[in-house]
């Protein structure tokens, strides 16, 4: 795999919008050509070379790996709409990393900002730290959020993660979020997304869930009153066919959306 290395030279004063940093845009370009790509800094257009040292070379989209070093917490939109290849980020990353990506893989070895993996359509986003709010969520006003792909977060995800997630059995699309723990409103307006939380969640998990599965292996403070206890269960079959075993209590809901619902929350017993 051809590797391109980017190293942040100086901290941007304003957020740096770097949606050009994707394997799709870097493919078959030399380091010199990549340096000339345009980024947005405040209301000015700057060159990628102004802020990053670039080395290495690229290949086709699938064969291109981008490694980025430095504190990128003020750099936004890396990996936006990428379709293949790989990005590895060694450090913290700002908002919108991997938003609307369709394929390939992004690994963040640090914390990620808000809207990481927003409206993901495929591929894999792995965050080996904490993540901000709206992880894998729909953007404002959209009724279809994450449609496919996997987001793995080792630490905590913020509020309203997996907002408006939408699965499709016919199209074989199963959006999946795995996280260490979660803030409130996890899986809000869920339409078939699968969420697995290794630790605890906060209030209002699964609010307005139409259908879908939320598995909590830690503790939940109190569920919404519109969730009803169904009973104990020892095996959960996920939408994509995988199975999870263990002692869980099964709740159905959100009954404020429908009287009879396929929405489920499982909490470890």
């Amino acid at each position, binding site marked *: 795999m051809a590797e391109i290395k980017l190293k942040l030279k100086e901290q941007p004063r304003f957020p740096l*919008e770097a949606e050009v940093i994707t394997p799709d845009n870097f493919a078959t370009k030399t380091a010199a050509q990549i340096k000339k790509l345009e980024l*947005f800094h405040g209301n000015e257009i700057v060159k990628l070379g102004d802020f990053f040292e670039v080395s290495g070379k690229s290949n086709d989209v699938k064969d291109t790996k981008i490694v980025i070093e430095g504190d990128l917490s003020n750099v936004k939109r890396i990996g936006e709409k990428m379709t293949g290849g790989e990005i590895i980020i060694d450090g913290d990353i700002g908002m919108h990393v991997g938003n609307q990506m369709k394929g390939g893989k992004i690994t963040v070895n640090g914390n990620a900002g808000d809207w990481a993996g927003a409206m993901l359509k495929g591929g894999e986003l792995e965050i080996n730290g904490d993540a901000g709010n709206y992880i894998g969520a729909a953007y*404002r006003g959209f009724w279809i959020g994450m449609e496919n792909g996997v987001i793995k977060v080792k630490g905590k995800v913020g509020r309203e993660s997996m907002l408006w997630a939408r699965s499709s059995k016919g199209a074989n699309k199963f959006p999946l979020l795995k996280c260490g723990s979660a803030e409130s409103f996890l899986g809000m307006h869920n339409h078939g997304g699968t969420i697995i939380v290794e630790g605890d969640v906060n209030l*209002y998990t699964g609010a307005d869930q139409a259908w879908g599965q939320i598995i909590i292996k830690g503790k939940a403070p109190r569920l*919404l*009153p519109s969730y009803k206890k169904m009973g104990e269960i020892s095996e959960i079959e996920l939408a994509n066919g995988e199975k999870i075993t263990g002692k869980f209590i099964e709740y159905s809901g959100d009954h*404020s959306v429908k*009287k009879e619902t396929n929405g489920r929350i499982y909490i470890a017993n």
Partner: protein
Amino acid sequence: MVEKKYKTFYDVICPFCGTLCDDLEIDVDEKAQEVVEVRNGCQIGTRKFFSSNPSGHRYMTPLIRENGSYKEISWDEAIDKAADILAKAKRPLLYGFASTECEAQSKGVELAEILGGILDNTASVCHGPTLLAEQDVGVPTSTLGEYKNRADLVIFWGCNPVHAHPRHLGRYSDFVRGYFRQDGRNDRYIIVVDPRNTNTAQIADLYIKVNPNEDYELMNAIRATLRGVEIDQKEVAGVKKEDLIKVTNIMKESNYGVIFFGMGLTQSISHHRNIDTAVCLTRELNDHTKFSITPMRGHYNITGSNTVFTWNTGYAYSIDFSRGYPRYNPGEFSAVDVLLRDEIDASLIVASDPASNFPAAAVRNMFKHPIISIEPHHTPTSVNADIILPAAFAGIETEGTAYRMDHVPLRLRKVKNPPGETLPDREILEKLIEKVKEKKGE
């Protein structure tokens, strides 16, 4: 015959709160150009008219701060210096616009576009969550006149109109006689949901004391009950299950219900999701009866700023023009968030006072960079500004259009001339646009 001392203006619109009362009578001393008497107005609206009279609190000439004190300068010089700051800024913030008229607001949009800046109005710290929820789930709403004539169930949720919108109850929602509600107050059932026993709660037929920050759960439980689901809990958010069922039945059995909500919902812990579920509740109640929902907007023309920004850019608030075209994302481009992250390098504050309302950390970051304030009188923001451009009061000293909380546009009146060198917000912004264009070489 007694000579008339003062000129009286009838049917004047009150430019204070979102109720936009349109029946004020103002006596003006024409010679001194001062308001001497206000009739029909509430306490707050009346004070606003009197505060427009020249006093030590009003700015009469443009001011610039030099070595810690303010110096009077000419309009040309002030506009030139202000335009210089804005044109050089790489990420300027234009904030406010709620307490001015629509024509000035559209000039603000034009200026933000030329500057490539961030444009926001006070909705981002007040009813912005309402707009977010409306984008997610829509809004079944109506005009205030309809409620006055038809509503027999009025719910005030997380708002206290007795203090915040004093004449709302008398004009539209409580004591007023309507076409189908001939007996006024006796023909309406009033429910107040609030953690505090407010003055509005004291005049209600039913007061529901909800635990602070748990409104979401209560509405969620009502929605489930409405669907015929029996909830597991004995008590939700401090409200007993029997009471919950009782309220649900009152809602279902009404002929026409309306929910008015305030910042008790939008600015408590669940923010826009409170409104999301309130709108869903209203929608679901329409399976049983007729129900509507309306936010109690604060500033008199905040609805107008949302409307004007929307027809100009497609978005109601939190707009970023840094790429030349409008982008929208509250949380990313909203004023408080960009200030907390210290992303801006200059700010233009129009007809609002963020220093009193924003978190201290955000205000500290705002004060680090140059501030230009278009403002009629002393505020905590303007007394820290670098350039103060004195404005005339829209709706008192200049005409314009304003939108009532139910999106009804009304024409504001001019009852007296602006004092000193003050100019209408619109004209100040026009001057700034012209100068910024010149400096940017357009």
